[in-house]
């Protein structure tokens, strides 16, 4: 079989970090090759080198039989390499056509010729079953559709090799299935695909071969059919991983969080949470499953006091906290791990020590007569860093220097270590690697055994399944069904999530 791409001995240093260490990587024509590794293992660096965003210090790239030097994205586009970035490179206010032709539009003088492009996009869209309307405005499209626009961009430029960087991170289970179908279609048309991921099941189901990276080195390249998820996990992390959670059934206690007929609006002033009620007892985890954008963010913000409640009531520990300030809600015993950790979880320009006491900065322990007690705070932070295994040089560096996993550990450390009886966790493992996920999962289970009432809002179905005592499915701002652990059933929940069943 012909190899479309060979990367030989690629080495890339960043100050203090060896991101890629003599990496050999090749892709056959018409194969889906998965690149597997934890965050920081060097997959993104390698792909950025291939896409011309970085220059390697050593090594050569052979593409389509010729040795090439790729100095810019433009050159890689010319070589027919396409990349779908993890954060989409789309202009939300432009239409699909405008996004697709951007950068290569000047074939017919200065006037924009959208008609020809529109036809071409229709044709491609039909050929690969993408089903994209060329005149739709991008921000109005669901995330899965936006990703297809990115794929269209690459196809429109005649990509022979398509790089997909963590493509499933933002998709629902149904959208993932659709994406895989599209990728298989593309493979049968002869397109080669590099599929970057840290999700083992996906790699197993979509790829032909897998290359595993760890700490900037290639551990192994294997045929997918000759390996297993547990073997891949071991190679990726360098040790056995236990993502499987044993949830020992336990007695639940009093009602700690009670939500009655909650109604909340989104930023566009439309109803996002509609007449939602739920009860949460101590010592149980209630998972809220649902496709992204069905009111999860608004629900969690309303509970945390970050978004006004239109009507309905919220009780924490029996105290009515409806439309109270976050400070008050916190004092009533709620801890909160927000969805967007950089925006709402930490102050990125504060030190770890400062971040670690954000909720308790007024307490006597950390402040005296309006002055903060530096030594106490630092001791406390050092203690948390040790207890939660936060990888950082010290407690005085800014939070923005932390990786996603360590930032999440910092937030969990802060929220879990203050007095609380209710815990709201939103998308706790989004963008985290397996090792960090493992840590977060076991921390949540510990919290549960200590009797905390936990509300877990997540779009990762696997996560909700393995951690929850009960699952409530949210659809268009309403709870459309609830299942107890013994009745969990992927199909049933999938249907509820899609809104096709009303319980």
């Amino acid at each position, binding site marked *: 079989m012909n190899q479309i791409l060979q990367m030989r001995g690629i080495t890339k240093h960043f100050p203090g970090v060896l991101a890629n260490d003599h990496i050999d990587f090749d892709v056959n024509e018409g194969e889906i090759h998965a690149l597997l590794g934890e965050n920081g293992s060097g997959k993104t660096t390698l792909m950025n080198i291939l896409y011309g965003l970085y220059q390697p210090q050593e090594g050569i790239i052979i593409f389509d039989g010729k040795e090439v030097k790729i100095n810019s994205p433009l050159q890689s586009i010319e070589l027919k390499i396409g990349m779908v970035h993890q954060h989409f490179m789309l*202009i939300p206010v432009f239409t699909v056509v405008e996004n697709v032709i951007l950068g290569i539009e000047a074939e017919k003088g200065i006037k924009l010729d959208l008609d020809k492009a529109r036809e071409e996009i229709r044709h491609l869209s039909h050929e690969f079953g993408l089903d994209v309307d060329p005149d739709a405005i991008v921000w109005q499209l669901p995330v899965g559709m936006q990703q297809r626009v990115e794929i269209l961009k690459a196809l429109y430029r005649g990509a022979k090799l398509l790089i997909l960087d963590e493509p499933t991170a933002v998709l629902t289970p149904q959208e993932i299935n659709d994406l895989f179908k599209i990728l298989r279609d593309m493979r049968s048309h002869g397109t080669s695909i590099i599929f970057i991921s840290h999700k083992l099941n996906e790699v197993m189901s979509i790829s032909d071969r897998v290359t595993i990276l760890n700490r900037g080195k290639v551990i192994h390249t294997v045929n997918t059919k000759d390996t297993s998820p547990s073997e891949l996990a071991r190679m990726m992390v360098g040790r056995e991983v236990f993502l499987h959670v044993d949830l020992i059934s336990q007695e639940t206690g009093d009602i700690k969080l009670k939500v009655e007929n909650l109604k909340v609006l989104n930023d566009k002033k439309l109803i996002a949470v509609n007449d939602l009620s739920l009860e949460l007892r101590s010592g149980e985890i209630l998972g809220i499953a649902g496709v992204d954008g069905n009111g999860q963010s608004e629900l969690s913000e309303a509970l945390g006091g970050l978004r006004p409640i239109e009507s309905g009531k919220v009780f924490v520990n029996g105290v009515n906290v409806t439309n109270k300030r976050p400070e008050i809600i916190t004092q009533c015993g709620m801890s909160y791990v927000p969805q967007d950790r950089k925006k709402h979880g930490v102050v990125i320009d504060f030190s770890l020590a400062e971040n670690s006491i954000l909720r308790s900065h007024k307490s006597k322990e950390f402040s005296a007569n309006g002055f903060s007690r530096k030594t106490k705070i630092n001791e406390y932070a050092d203690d948390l860093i040790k207890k939660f295994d936060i990888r950082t040089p010290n407690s005085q560096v800014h939070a923005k220097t932390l990786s996603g996993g360590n930032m999440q550990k910092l937030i969990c450390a802060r929220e879990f270590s203050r007095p609380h009886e209710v815990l709201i966790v939103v998308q706790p493992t989004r963008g985290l690697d397996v090792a960090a996920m493992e840590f977060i999962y076991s921390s949540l289970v510990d919290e549960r055994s200590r009797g905390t009432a936990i509300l877990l809002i997540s779009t990762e179905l696997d996560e909700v399944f393995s951690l929850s005592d009960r699952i409530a499915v949210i659809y268009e701002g309403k709870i459309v069904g609830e299942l107890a652990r013994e009745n969990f059933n992927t199909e049933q929940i999938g249907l509820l999530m899609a809104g096709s069943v009303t319980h």
Partner: protein
Amino acid sequence: MVLDRILTLTFIVNLLAATIRSAAPILLSALGEIYTEKSGVCNIGVEGQILCGALTGFLAAYFTGSNLFGFVMGMAGGLLMSLLFAFLTVTLNADQIVVGVTVNIFAAGLTSFIYRVIFGVTIFPPATKPMKEIFIKGLSDIPIIGQVFFQQKPYVYFVFLLVPFLSYLLFKTTVGLKIRSVGENPLAAETVGIPVRLIRYCCILFGGACAGLTGAFLSIAQLTRFMDNMAGGRGFIALAIVIFGQYNPTKAAAAALIFGFADSLQTCLQAVGLKFPEQFLRMAPYLVTILAMVLVSKSVSGPASLSKPYYKE
């Protein structure tokens, strides 16, 4: 009665003609700023660039006797000031607002200083040759409409003719698409091979040239002389027009006319001797600015990356 003097045809025709006349320079600056902001750069140094253009334009026109050359040098003056802005904000990634404020303060001092050095303090300030109105053949004879629209000075025609051209360029051409993409998501633009910084430079310089020309219009064509701080807040009104006009050249023209009207109303009312404190009348354009901002600024959304520096990884 005052009303008798106001409700005459002459007064209304004068008022409308003045509206267009005073809208034109502000509109020109606003057009340039629309391009700057569409590329993701908020240049609040327009006021300073207008001042620079007013001085360089005036000096060139005064010493060579050619008003046309004055306009060219006015553009150059504004452009030079915007080059400083572009270097600081695009190349060095400095905060755009801070640099904009600096440019305004710097230009105010610099222009007065240079003028003083060259001419000293004079009782009869030097002046350029006055500029004549051009009557458009045929059209200027139409009653009322002809007097309002077609008996203006040449720069007024120039500015209003720019509007459809710039509107087309921004929304219907590949160049416009590139500019808008850079203002919305520069990283995305970069990944498809669009030179983000180059485009931002070009847009800032274009905005600077427009502001400089505005200044030259003010000093050469309207006043025939240079005065300290003669921009008189027009740069800031232009910024307001950009928002009020929803970053669209055509709508900005409409918005500029509203401000032009407010501005002309006060001069025309003063001219007929209205017994009303003139200070209040003079407030009119600024009041309209504030009012417009209060009314529309919440509902208008600018380019997504407006005023965010672009760091290349």
